[in-house]
């Protein structure tokens, strides 16, 4: 569904330095000059090894987030209330799979096969957005995901679309276009509950309370502890800091929630008029890392479902790969 703002990586400072030493300084200078001029880097172009590695990781995790992100909402396709919501939800989840497809294709241009990426997802080696390790418990959760998670994704994806790698930017342009429909549908469904019966309002408020912390986690740890290197910013792989994106999200969407009479479970949440920045209680970052490392409520389940799908589809993929000559005669 979305690449979270946060891209997981093992500590890599040593690796970064070694690999950079291997890059031809002249080529590196040309490469960096192209980026600072705003040029896009294309698959056949020379690129530093570390650029390739970081981008592969970024796009791959984004792709995984799309197909894993399809699962929490996907479980509500069979229960969506009424034709309009049912059709909108199927179409949305379908779009997310399409995003996954576009992104795997973009990542493949960097040299890693889709199969290898899927294997790394299933083995737990490769991560996806943390937010999908939480359960969608009620229909209201679907509306909160559709509005707020898609909104957060848009903030992140619009930023990334201005990055330096051509195939990723082009995939993101199309994705952002579709995400804007998701946001509209999500908002519409959320408003129905927010302006509905007392039961519907209570259901929505409960969902919002449960999703608030995962949403605050979405863009990743605060800048003061985040280890994203300046290099990634200079190379236009990382386009905005975690705090910048979180602030932009809060600035656009918190007022919309408050306008609907909804509350958010953080008494400190407010906009500082002088700085123009939002202030809030720091979410539990230990929990964030615990969930990323497999300790969230749904990590196991998400990967199990994905494994089932891979296993179940194996014979189909095999059949498509090895078309045999047709049998000489029908046996009828």
């Amino acid at each position: 569904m979305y690449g979270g703002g946060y891209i997981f990586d093992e500590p890599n400072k040593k690796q970064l330095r070694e690999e950079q030493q291997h890059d031809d300084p002249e080529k590196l200078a040309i490469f960096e000059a192209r980026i600072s001029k705003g040029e896009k880097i294309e698959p056949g172009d020379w690129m530093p090894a570390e650029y390739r590695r970081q981008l592969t990781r970024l796009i791959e995790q984004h792709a995984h987030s799309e197909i894993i992100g399809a699962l929490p909402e996907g479980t509500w396709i069979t229960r969506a209330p009424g034709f309009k919501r049912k059709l909108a939800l199927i179409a949305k989840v379908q779009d997310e799979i399409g995003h996954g497809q576009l992104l795997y294709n973009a990542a493949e241009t960097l040299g890693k096969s889709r199969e290898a990426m899927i294997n790394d997802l299933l083995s737990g080696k490769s991560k996806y957005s943390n937010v999908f390790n939480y359960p969608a418990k009620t229909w209201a959760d679907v509306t909160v995901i559709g509005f707020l998670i898609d909104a957060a994704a848009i903030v992140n994806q619009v930023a990334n679309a201005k990055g330096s790698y051509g195939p990723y930017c082009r995939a993101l342009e199309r994705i952002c276009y579709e995400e804007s429909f998701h946001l509209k549908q999500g908002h519409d469904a959320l408003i129905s509950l927010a302006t509905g019966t007392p039961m519907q309002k209570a259901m929505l408020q409960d969902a919002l309370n449960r999703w608030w912390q995962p949403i605050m986690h979405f863009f990743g740890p605060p800048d003061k502890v985040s280890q994203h290197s300046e290099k990634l910013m200079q190379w236009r792989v990382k386009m905005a800091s975690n705090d910048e994106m979180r602030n932009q999200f809060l600035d656009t969407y918190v007022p919309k929630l408050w306008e609907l009479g909804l509350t958010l479970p953080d008494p400190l949440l407010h906009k500082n008029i002088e700085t123009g920045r939002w202030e809030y209680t720091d979410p539990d970052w230990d929990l964030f890392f615990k969930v990323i490392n497999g300790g969230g409520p749904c990590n196991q389940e998400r990967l199990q479902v994905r494994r089932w799908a891979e296993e179940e589809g194996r014979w189909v993929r095999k059949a498509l790969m090895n078309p045999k000559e047709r049998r000489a005669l029908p046996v009828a």
Partner: protein
Amino acid sequence: MNAALQKAITTLITSMADDALILGHRNSEWTGLGPIMEEDIAFSSMAQDKIGHAWALYRILQEHLGGEDPDQFAFIRAAKDFTCCHLAELPISSYDFSLMRHFLFDHAEAVRYESLQQCSFEPLQQLSKKVKGELKYHTLHADAWVLQLCRGGEESQQRMQAALDRCFPLAAGIFEPGPQDALLADAGIYPGEQTLYDKWLNTIYPLLVNASLNLPDPAAIPPQYGGRYGNHTPHLQALLQEMGEVFRLDPTAGW
């Protein structure tokens, strides 16, 4: 239009819509879980088309035949009042089953909507033009996939044959005749189930032969009937329970 004919048209449209809704619902369960991403997306599109057809048919009932609001009619009705065929009700099972069901059902629909191009009930005739166009892509998709999987090695071929054997009596049940068939034929609504069944067999037979599949002997295998009279497999009850779970929390609320 006299009351008997009105009732007969309502019966026909309801079973067509129930088939499309229930099978569209089933097929939508593959969204996000398909065997390859490209097919996941295609299958989901067709599921959306089916649910869309059902919605349009229920709206014809509402607007022209005194029927209920489509959401109320679809999400609240009891299983015994549904008239879908058993083929549509069964769980998605494996992809071989789902694909074969798609092939057999969509060809049945294509034959039906082709016959409705001349329907004397105008709202249905109008809708059938649009639906026919969409079904063309569905049957092309089904044909290509059945063929490809039948030529994709032994395991795949065997799976497709087993799926056909399992689906065939269920698919024949799509054409369960009803007491209204003669009246509808006389009134120029559509030619009746027996005629559609024969046309369907003629359509699928060469395609199956081309895919090296053995068509079960239609004369030796009794069709699985009952759905058109409200007799269903237990799967329908479970499906409807799930489909209406949220809507029933408050059927008068806007969702």
